[in-house]
């Protein structure tokens, strides 16, 4: 473990260790979600939706939402998302009816983010907080709890059957579910439902936007499937510096290898790096990827030692700035898929 001086001096301390259950509830009352028994059923083919969605439709919740002062006005909803990808999803679903901000900006690392008091202030003015869950952004709920907020929190991954993976000897859920376009559709539907509850007047707009986006995601998914079908099975292997593409790999049958663990926190061992080099050499992988936020030096080392070429930047946990190649969720998926397919075909 490195001595992390930034975090020790930082405002909120320890990294996320526990995995939050999927939930949608008021921050002040963590046990409240247990009371929700009535649920909406929306079978999307990847796992049943939980009863948690239905919580918003309960009379007590509706009453609370109604006495929330900002909801009485016709002003756009204020939504705070933990990071850029979720923020873009909310923006796309809500259209002009919500002002969305992301606490972790483009290029930031959501895994190790340290919120500042100003971030707590941003949460305080929100009508809805959207987090990813699955252990990615536990600091957001701690922040809401510390600020003692009465703002509903939507865990966007609520319907996802998480992919398990091993980190530091423990089995934890992989948080990077949005890299699978079909799971991205589940995120959108969860967001739409929360928005509809918070702002019922614009429910049709939210539904229309969600339908349009889901259709675009399905087209993108089909297109990706066709492209990857053209790659021989023996070449469906990718090396990246940060293990964020597990869901992508699962969806399309591509093996994802990484020199570091799932989190950017860990210091690699010489043995792990040697195994990756062996893997590249023995399986003749010709291209490796550096992601937009991970430390590129280690992957540089691996490239030097194996002679593999640089596949460019993939966007895993963060969108690019507006003038970059991946300013929206859909653009990010498209960009990543084209880069990955080119690498697999070229090697």
């Amino acid at each position: 473990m490195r001595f992390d001086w930034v975090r020790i001096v930082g405002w909120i301390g320890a990294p996320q260790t526990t995995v939050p259950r999927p939930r949608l509830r008021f921050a002040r009352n963590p046990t409240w979600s247990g009371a929700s028994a009535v649920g909406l059923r929306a079978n999307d083919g990847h796992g049943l939706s939980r009863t948690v969605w239905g919580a918003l439709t309960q009379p007590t919740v509706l009453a609370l939402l109604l006495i929330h002062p900002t909801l009485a006005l016709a002003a756009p909803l204020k939504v705070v998302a933990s990071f850029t990808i979720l923020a873009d999803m909310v923006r796309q679903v809500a259209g002009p009816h919500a002002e969305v901000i992301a606490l972790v900006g483009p290029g930031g690392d959501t895994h190790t983010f340290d919120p500042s008091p100003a971030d707590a202030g941003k949460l305080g003015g929100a009508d809805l907080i959207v987090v990813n869950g699955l252990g990615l952004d536990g600091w957001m709920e701690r922040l809401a709890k510390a600020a003692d907020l009465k703002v509903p929190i939507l865990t966007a991954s609520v319907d996802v059957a998480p992919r398990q993976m091993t980190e530091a000897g423990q089995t934890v859920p992989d948080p990077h579910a949005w890299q699978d376009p079909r799971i991205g559709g589940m995120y959108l539907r969860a967001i739409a439902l929360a928005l509809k509850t918070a702002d019922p007047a614009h429910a049709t707009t939210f539904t229309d936007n969600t339908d349009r986006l889901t259709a675009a995601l399905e087209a993108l998914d089909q297109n990706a499937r066709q492209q990857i079908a053209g790659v021989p099975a023996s070449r469906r292997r990718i090396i990246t510096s940060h293990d964020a593409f597990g869901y992508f790999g699962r969806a399309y049958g591509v093996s994802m290898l990484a020199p570091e663990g799932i989190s950017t926190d860990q210091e690699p061992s010489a043995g792990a790096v040697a195994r990756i080099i062996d893997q590249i050499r023995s399986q003749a992988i010709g291209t490796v990827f550096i992601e937009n936020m991970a430390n590129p030096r280690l992957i540089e080392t691996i490239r030097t030692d194996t002679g593999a070429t640089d596949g460019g930047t993939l966007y895993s946990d963060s969108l690019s700035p507006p003038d970059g190649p991946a300013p929206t969720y859909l653009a990010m998926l498209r960009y990543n898929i084209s880069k990955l397919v080119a690498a697999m075909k070229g090697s």
Partner: protein
Amino acid sequence: MTLYHLLFEPFVAYGFLRRALLACLALSLGCGPIGVLLVLRRMSLMGDAMSHAILPGAAIAFLIAGLSLPAMSLGGLIAGLLVAMLAGAVSRATPLKEDASMAGFYLTSLALGVLIVSARGSNVDLLHVLFGSILSVDTPALLLVAAISAITLATLAVIYRPLIVECFDPGFLRAVGGHGPLFHGIFLGLVVLNLVAGFQSLGSLMAVGLMMLPATAARLWARDVLSLFWVASLIAFLSGYIGLLASYHLNLASGPAIIFTAGLAYVGSIVFGRNGGLVRTYFPPPHYHTTPAEHGR
């Protein structure tokens, strides 16, 4: 598994391990003597304070110039030297002792660094970006570390006599007209340089461990200053070698593995050291007939 596989094969098969080992060698040559001099000058904790003073400089340079090895090294160097010089100046101009003013300045520097970093709103885990790992040492980093060792050894050769006199009898050096503060300043500059080299290669605050642990361990084996230098450098290099092997065979993080090996060498020296180790002191060979108090001087 043969001995060859255990001890040499990893370095033959993997370029990154060869570069890591070379970086350890270069670091050991520079850090050994510097650490010994720090111990002799009773400034063992100074290295740790300095390493904290350097970090903000490197962080600020990263925010200005991005991931650039020279810029970050220069930033660290400037911050470290500034803190050292200010602490020296304050201790001469006010009643504060040097360690007190050093503590004051390094903490201020650290706080300032964190403030600047958080004001920029960068959420990137800075340590990971600032300092890779010994496993990701590339040719420029290797050249930097080697150059710093060469500069260190050359400078020490030039200022060796006055520096040693300043260590043991600063009053005498003043009486014969030597420039004690000048050599002290040059020495502090060397400390900062070697810490920067350690950060760039070992990739963590623990780099200071490769400076101090072998030096304190060497004190229990050797008596004169030059032998102390050699023993400290040797222990540092062996720690690097064994640490890398452990990191390879046992899947341990490489930086801590190296420093922990140096720590084991230190503990081993305390117990078995020829020059004042516990075993020699309390269970002396029969023909010596010395008391613990007489021994180990």
